[in-house]
């Protein structure tokens, strides 16, 4: 280690950016070299001097003003949608539409109530008792009311509604109709058991990009760890060829809240452990992951890395 090297690295030394061995050598050098020791002292003084320009915390009012301005602009700003959202069923869009339901429900109630009173009044005025539906009459399974029209001058109301009819389809997973239903169920069903079964049925068809996209969606967003694990199972063999699958698995490895899913993701990435993004993730996990298992396994995978000359 010569004076030139030391002088070029004093800045890094003082900012704690030197590796431990280099730091040790530099300290040994300045203990016996007066010139370099003087340079260290000078640079240290420079660092203190630079603090005469203080870094101020933004005042509360400054921060509040910035936040308010931002909030106002955000109200009128739309998010750009990612390309894959065009294919994905988004429950929030549906929920946003549902927001208007209370208004529709109130309207139906008012029209129904008004119509009922009107009918009863006209029946009583004719000395008849109002018609009562027979006890064994079942109300139809209504999935939504599409329109209500009142005939002017009469008590007649036309209610147009959609009736829900239970149906079932049986067929091979390759059947497009069955597959469409499975893809829909994997993304949008409230029942996690149904989602799990549909994802399980789809895992055998992951060679279809549409199926992979749905499995990737399930791995990323499904709230149930069992469903995420099942999706991971189906995607495992595609980490090599499909970069989107690899990214989703990498994301699960880094961010999933469930250790089982993370371990599964770690093993799924084994065939692509030499990939730069995977290697960087492994290096990071091997050092600082809270789970001992993930740290050990990451180290093991790094150790078995094929050597690059």
């Amino acid at each position, binding site marked *: 280690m010569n004076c030139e090297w030391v002088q*070029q690295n004093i*800045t*890094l030394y003082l*900012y*704690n*950016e030197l590796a431990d061995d280099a730091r040790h050598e530099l300290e040994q050098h300045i203990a016996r070299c007066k010139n370099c020791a003087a340079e260290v002292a*000078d*640079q240290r*003084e*420079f*660092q203190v*001097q*630079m603090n*005469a*320009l*203080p*870094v*101020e*915390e*933004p005042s509360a009012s*400054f*921060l509040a*003003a*910035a*936040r308010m*301005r*931002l*909030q106002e*602009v*955000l109200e009128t*700003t*739309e*998010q*750009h*949608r*990612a390309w894959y*959202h065009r294919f994905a069923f*988004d429950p*929030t869009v549906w929920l*946003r539409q549902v927001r208007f339901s209370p208004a529709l429900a109130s309207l139906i109630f008012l029209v129904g109530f008004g119509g009922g009173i009107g009918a009863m009044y006209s029946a009583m005025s004719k000395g008849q008792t109002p018609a009562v539906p027979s006890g064994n009459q079942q109300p139809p399974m209504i999935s939504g009311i599409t329109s209500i029209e009142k005939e002017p001058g009469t008590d007649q109301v036309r209610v147009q509604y959609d009736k829900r009819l239970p149906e079932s389809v049986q067929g091979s997973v390759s059947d497009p109709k069955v597959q469409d239903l499975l893809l829909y169920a994997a993304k949008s069903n409230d029942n996690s058991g149904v989602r799990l079964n549909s994802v399980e049925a789809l895992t055998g068809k992951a060679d279809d990009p549409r199926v992979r996209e749905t499995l990737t969606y399930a791995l990323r*967003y499904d709230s149930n760890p069992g469903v995420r694990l099942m999706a991971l199972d189906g995607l495992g063999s595609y980490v090599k060829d499909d970069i989107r699958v690899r*990214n989703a698995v*990498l*994301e699960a490895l*880094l*961010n999933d*809240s469930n250790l089982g899913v993370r371990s599964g993701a770690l093993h799924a990435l084994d065939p692509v452990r030499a990939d*730069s*993004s995977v290697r*960087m*993730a492994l*290096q*990071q996990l091997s*050092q*600082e*992951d*809270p789970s001992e298992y993930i740290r050990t396994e990451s180290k093991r995978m790094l150790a078995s890395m094929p050597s690059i000359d």
Partner: protein
Amino acid sequence: MPAEAVAVPLTVGPGLRTPQTRRAADETSSTPSDRGLMVGQAQSRMNDTELIREAQRGNRAAFEDLVRQYDGAVLRLAYHLTRSEQDAQDVYQEAFLKAYRNINNFRFECSFYTWIYRIVTNLCLDLLRKRQVRKEDSGVTTDSEGGSYDLLDQVADIRSGASPERDLMRRELGARIAKALTKLTPRERMVFEMKHYQGLKLRTIGEILNTTEETAKNTLFRGTQKLRAALKDMR
């Protein structure tokens, strides 16, 4: 602005931590006492992930929660760099607006911290470049509205109450430093700012600026040498 393909490591946690505390965190490696810090970082990363996912589903309140975790640090950086409240607010607003519009392109390939800092530093670099073209290198400079202000006025007297002479000297030195900083190239300025004043690791700075740690080191070295030469007579 989409997150770039490779960057993954997460070095620094978010929040309104002061440069000193962050520097202390950076200086540590993996001593047992850091376990709490690491767990804290992992937890905040997890919270961030939830908030980002919610924001990606169009939940604006979740995005605003994210903003609140980072906006103090963003405003501090922008203000220290621009020395103008107006410019700092503009950078702040533009940065979070960009983040909001493009949140669906955030693919969790780097931390949100790195992502938002990348947006902020790009905006600051643009601003510094524009200023450099306008040759705003005198003691009196102009803000984004065209009004002039004195650098000396921008140096807060953090030790008011002490000797007035020392206060004045300190403010003068602060003004000289602010002026010397404007002589650096925008990139040197950015690296020096993030290293010296914000206490970030060079590895993180490299990631934020989409460059290597080695380049960040060289840029820091060049910037430091220029500043030392410019301020030699003040010591």
